[in-house]
């Protein structure tokens, strides 16, 4: 046990802190994917977007020593990937899931290609707010050091939840996602709406990537994302396309991801790799528990290929 002597209390505390730290990229990717899926498309390529966003944010932050410019660069890169996905999927017989897989590989490949020179140098971090400053205990301080992006993500979740219901744009998005025919009858162009929704989804995923490389873990490596982008896609289904649900699920997943390191910090090293797999197992269990062959998912956009 370490000198500060909070003992096993360190585990839940580390999980809480870890949940806040680890969940932020999940929040952004899943909110972005929620927008995309609400429009009736699915973009599995967000995993690649996340990696490319992480690389571009880090590279720009190193070159300009401004993490915020890095964040903007990542969002822009994500926007480009999203728009590309949205554009290419409008052609007949082009499968959005397969294109997503291709962009997953392509985004990672491009990120590794351009990211090679940035593995060594260190970039400035995105700022965090020390909510734990009142405490003398370092673990409490560490757990409550909350990054501004987490707060922005939380606010964005509430905003999107409200906007899906109460704004014109939200209504248009839902109509297009539920029925292309109904949307066309209303004079809307489903292709354009989906293009915009996929673009915004990509931009948010890029921001999630910027968080990875500029705050936690806070450096650019080729293994920076291990499926977070993909788990976020599964998480959106679990959250029933509800932004508040996405936020809650992201916290849950973040906590699961923090389980291994938290246990390790108090000396539990047995089965470390299995704890490391906890978020994947949790995602899978949740998918099994919430899917059913006999009824379609409540709240699922009607045009979504993955639920058909």
């Amino acid at each position: 046990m370490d000198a500060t002597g909070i003992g096993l209390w360190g585990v839940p505390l580390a999980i809480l802190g870890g949940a806040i730290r680890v969940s932020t990229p999940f929040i952004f990717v899943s909110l972005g994917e929620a927008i995309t899926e609400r429009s009736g498309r699915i973009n599995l390529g967000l995993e690649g977007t996340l990696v490319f966003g992480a690389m571009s944010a880090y590279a720009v932050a190193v070159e300009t020593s401004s993490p915020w410019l890095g964040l903007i660069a990542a969002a822009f890169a994500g926007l480009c990937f999203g728009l590309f996905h949205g554009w290419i999927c409008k052609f007949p017989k082009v499968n959005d899931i397969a294109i997503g897989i291709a962009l997953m590989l392509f985004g990672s490949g491009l990120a590794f290609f351009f990211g090679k020179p940035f593995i060594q140098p260190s970039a400035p971090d995105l700022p965090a707010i020390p909510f734990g400053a009142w405490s003398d205990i370092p673990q409490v301080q560490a757990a409550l050091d909350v990054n501004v992006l987490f707060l922005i993500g939380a606010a964005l979740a509430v905003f999107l939840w409200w906007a899906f219901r109460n704004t014109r744009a939200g209504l248009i998005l839902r109509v297009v996602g539920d029925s292309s025919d109904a949307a066309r009858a209303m004079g809307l162009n489903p292709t354009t709406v989906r293009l915009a929704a996929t673009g915004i989804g990509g931009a948010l995923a890029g921001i999630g990537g910027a968080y990875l490389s500029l705050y936690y873990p806070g450096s650019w490596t080729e293994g920076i994302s291990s499926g977070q982008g993909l788990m976020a896609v599964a998480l959106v289904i679990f959250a029933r396309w509800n932004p508040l649900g996405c936020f809650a699920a992201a916290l849950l997943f973040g906590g699961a991801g923090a389980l291994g390191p938290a246990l390790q910090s108090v000396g539990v090293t047995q089965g470390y790799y299995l704890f490391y797999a906890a978020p994947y197992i949790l995602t899978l269990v949740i998918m099994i528990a919430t899917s059913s062959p006999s009824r379609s998912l409540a709240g699922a956009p009607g045009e979504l290929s993955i639920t058909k």
Partner: protein
Amino acid sequence: MADTVSSADAPAMLGVKGYPAALEWTARRAEAFVIPLAALVVGMVLFSLFILAVGKSPIQLYETMWRGGFGSWFSVQNSLSRAAPLLLAALCVALPARLGLVVIGGEGAIVLGGVAAAAAGTALSGAPSFIVILVMGVAGMAAGGIWIGAVGALRHYRAVNETISSLLMAYIAIALMNQMVEGPLRDPASLNKPSTQPLADIYRIDNMPGMEVHWGLAVGVVACVLSWVLIEKTRWGFAARIAGGNVRAAQVQGLNVGSLIVGFTGLAGAFAGLAGMLEVAAVQGSANASLAAGYGYTGILVAFLARHNPLAIIPVAFLLGGIDASGGLIQRRMDLPDATVLVLQGMLFVVILFSETFYGRFKAFNPDLWKRGS
């Protein structure tokens, strides 16, 4: 189709449109060759532009790629060695695809197949070599088959999306492998790179006579041919193609879609597991983290390039094996990152998927749209 013309009373063997039947037959089949080849060329041109944009010579790049992957007997053997696991990994994507399933977690089956094979090899050490190798193959296939078969079962019985679940299970499989290799199965002598006990030499799989390529290549080619026969020539394959086209229609016809899905995904996983076993028995000599070398992911690309046709997988796997093999030479000769080949693969993948939209669009490939001949 051309078979509406009976050969007995049609003197000149004319097709439906009055053109020679052979011409119409060729036109219909040419589409399946011309479009992918054109997409390949377009992808390579786009990649040339990318290489120009980063200030290198695309001509030098393709020349280096040719030399590294195909230009000499040495490099061809190297490419063939890399093609061996790709053949089996691609089958793991192509077989479920015939049922309309997109399974992308073959990497997990490869990894677990390798671990199971290594465990079997260690447990049986002392037994005659052909028995050990046989049991290792069966163990690898069983592990992979159960892993991907579970994905199929979840899909059918619980409606769990197979694309996401298979990839999640690949991450879980890699964690399981790390746990086994660092824990119960670890060879205490492996310090820096935790591995299982090395296999004795008599249990290793040899190279084929006259070449530096292990027998896994032959196994992969046979697996592709058998898969083609299964899909095209047996009633199970016929049933699978019906179910892949329309699940309800298949159920109305009394087909047991559940067994078909579990059977095909199980077989697909067994092939990937066999790839893992071959990596252990022919290349690595033990199970370790090198099993997750990305063959499962390149296999996805191979299968899509081959449009899920098991026979087409054979040349495509050789092509991609060669591109993979040339990565090192490109890195050394041209001072480009090793991810260069990943960029090329990603571009080819996107262009190939985009090319799907052109099937049935060209009049030249569709005699039904031709003007009636004389």
